[in-house]
C-alpha cells in the first residue's frame, strides 16, 4: 500500500520542494564540516607544535581495529547507496534489505569502537588530567588522547544518530511511503550517512596511521 506524498502548499511544485530540501541538507553538512573542522584545526595545531609526541603516542592506537572500522563504514556507505537507488527504482524489498545491512554494519562499527575504548581505559590512556599510563612519558601525551577521544567520540555520536535515522527510514520504507515519486528523506539520510563515513575517512589516517 503506497501512500501518496503531497508537497507543502508554499512550494510551487514537488520538484521545488525536493530541490530545496536537498540544498538545505547540503547547507547543514557545511555546518557539520565546520564543527568537525574545529577539531581538525586543533589536531593540526598540536601536531605542528609537538610532532614527535604525536608520532610516539599514535603507536598506542589499535591500527587493526581502526582499519576494520574503516572497511565497515565504507561497506555501510555502499549498502546505503544501494538502498537509495533501490528506493528510487521502486524496489522496496531490496531497499529494506540494504537498510538493514547498513544498520548492522553501523552496529558492528560501534562494537569494535567499544572494545577499542575499553582497551584504552584499561591501559590508562585517558584524556588530559586522567592520563595515568606509564609507558608514554611525554608530558604532552595526554593532549593526543584528549583529541583522540573527543574526535572519535563526537564521530561515534554521529554514527548513533545515523543508526536512529536509518531505523526511522526502515520503518517508513517498510510501510511503503517511499518510491520513485517521493524519496527525499531517503536521499537526505543517505547524504548524512556518507558524510559520517567521509569524516571517518579523514579521522582514520590522521589519528591511526600517521599520528
Amino acid at each position, binding site marked *: 500500500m503506497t501512500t501518496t*506524498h*503531497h508537497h507543502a502548499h508554499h512550494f510551487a511544485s514537488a520538484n521545488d520542494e525536493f530541490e530545496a530540501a536537498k540544498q538545505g541538507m547540503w547547507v547543514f553538512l*557545511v555546518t557539520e*564540516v565546520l564543527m568537525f573542522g574545529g577539531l581538525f584545526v586543533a589536531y593540526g595545531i598540536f601536531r605542528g607544535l609537538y610532532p614527535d609526541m604525536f608520532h610516539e603516542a599514535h603507536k598506542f592506537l589499535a591500527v587493526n581495529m581502526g582499519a576494520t572500522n574503516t572497511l565497515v563504514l565504507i561497506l555501510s556507505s555502499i549498502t546505503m547507496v544501494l538502498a537509495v537507488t533501490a528506493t528510487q527504482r521502486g524496489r522496496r524489498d531490496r531497499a529494506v534489505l540494504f537498510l538493514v545491512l547498513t544498520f548492522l554494519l553501523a552496529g558492528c562499527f560501534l562494537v569494535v569502537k567499544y572494545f577499542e575504548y575499553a582497551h584504552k581505559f584499561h591501559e590508562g590512556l585517558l584524556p588530559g588530567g586522567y592520563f595515568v599510563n606509564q609507558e608514554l612519558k611525554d608530558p604532552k601525551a595526554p593532549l593526543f588522547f584528549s583529541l583522540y577521544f573527543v574526535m572519535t567520540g563526537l564521530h561515534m555520536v554521529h554514527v548513533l544518530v545515523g543508526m536512529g535515522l536509518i531505523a526511522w527510514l526502515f520503518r517508513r520504507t517498510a510501510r511503503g511511503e517511499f518510491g520513485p515519486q517521493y524519496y527525499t528523506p531517503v536521499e537526505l539520510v543517505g547524504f548524512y550517512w556518507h558524510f559520517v563515513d567521509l569524516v571517518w*575517512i579523514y579521522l582514520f*589516517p*590522521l589519528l591511526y596511521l600517521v599520528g
Partner: protein
Amino acid sequence: METQKPAQESHGHHHILSTEVALGVGFALLLLTGLTVWIAGVDLGRLNFLVALLVASVKAALVALFFMNLLYDRRENGVIFGTSFLFLAIFLVLTATDLFFRGDVAVKGPLTAFAQSKTAQPKVARPWVATPLLLSQGKMLYSQQCVACHGPEGKGDGPAAGSLTPAPRDFTRAGGWKNGRKPSQVFKTLVEGIPGSAMAPYGTLPAEDRWALAHFVLSLGEAPEADTDEDLLKVGIDVKGGGQVVQEAPSIPLEVAMRRLTRPEPRAAKVGAKIEAESAGGRLYLARCASCHGEAGEGAIARVSGTLDAVRLRTAPLSASQAVGSPAIFESIVSNGLPGLMPGLASLNGTQLSELREHVRKLVAAQQ
C-alpha cells in the same frame, strides 16, 4: 496542514546511480583503504603525512561525487559544500600564523622550576628544635613515607598495617613507645628502626628530614618532654660544641645508593593472567605482601596519600628481582626485610616461606 493536491506529481527526473558504478566506486574505496594502510608502513618521513592526506582526500572526493551525487547534481550544492572547506582552511592557516611563529620570548622551558630556584629554601641551623617550618616539612615527608603503615592521622591504621605484627605505633597515644617519646629518641628509632618489627631504619633520609619527621610524629600526640643535652649527645649532637652533627648514622653503601638513584622509576609490569589465591602461599601473599607488591606482583602501587596526586610506592615488579631464584636469598629477605625499603616478616616459619616462594614464582612466570 498540507492542502490536498489532486494529482500525485513526481519530483521530476533525477539521475539515479547505476549499481555497477556504485559497486565500482565502493570497491575503489576499499582498495584505497588497503593502499593507505600499507603506505603508512613504509617510512617516507615527512611525506607520510601528505600521502595519507592525499589518499584520504581522493576517497572523500569519490564518496562526495558519486555516493552523494555531486557529480550529477546542480552546481550550487557543490559550491556550497566547497566553501566550507575554504573557510576551514582560512581558520587553520591564520591560527597557524600565530601558534607556529611565536618568536623570541615565548620559551616553553620548565617554568615552575625557575620560580622555585630563585626563592632558595633557607637552611635550618638547629633541626632538633621543633619549628613550624620543620613541622610542615615533616608532614610532607610523613605523607610520602609513613602513611602506608602508620595511616593518615598516625593512628597506626595504614592500608599496609593489617598484615603487620606487631602493629605499627599509634602516635596519637602516649603509651607503648619502645625508645621513648623525646625527639632525640624518635630520631634514634628512625636511624636504626625497631628490629623484629616491620619498622625499617630510614638511614637513607638526610638528618634534617629525620628530625622533621620526628617533630611531626610527636606533634600528633601530646607535647613530648624536651631533650636534655645528654639525650642529644646520645644521637651524636654536641649542643655546646656549636651543635654540629658529630657522627652520621650508618647509611647504605654508596654504590647501592647510586644504583637505587640511577634505577629508572619502577614501572608496573604488564599484569599477567589472574592467579587464583587458593593455595596457602597465595593467601599468605595476599595478606602480607600484596598491599605493597600488588596482587599480581606488578609493583609500583599507586597510593593516594595526604597530598593531592597519587604517590607511587617504590616497589619494583617481582619479575625484576633476582631473589626469587634461590630459596635462601628469598627467605632471608622476606624474614628480616631490607633496611629502609621493606619490612621483614620475622614471624613466618619455614613451610610458610616455601609456600610463599612457590606462589611468587607462579606470579613471576605469569609476568614473563
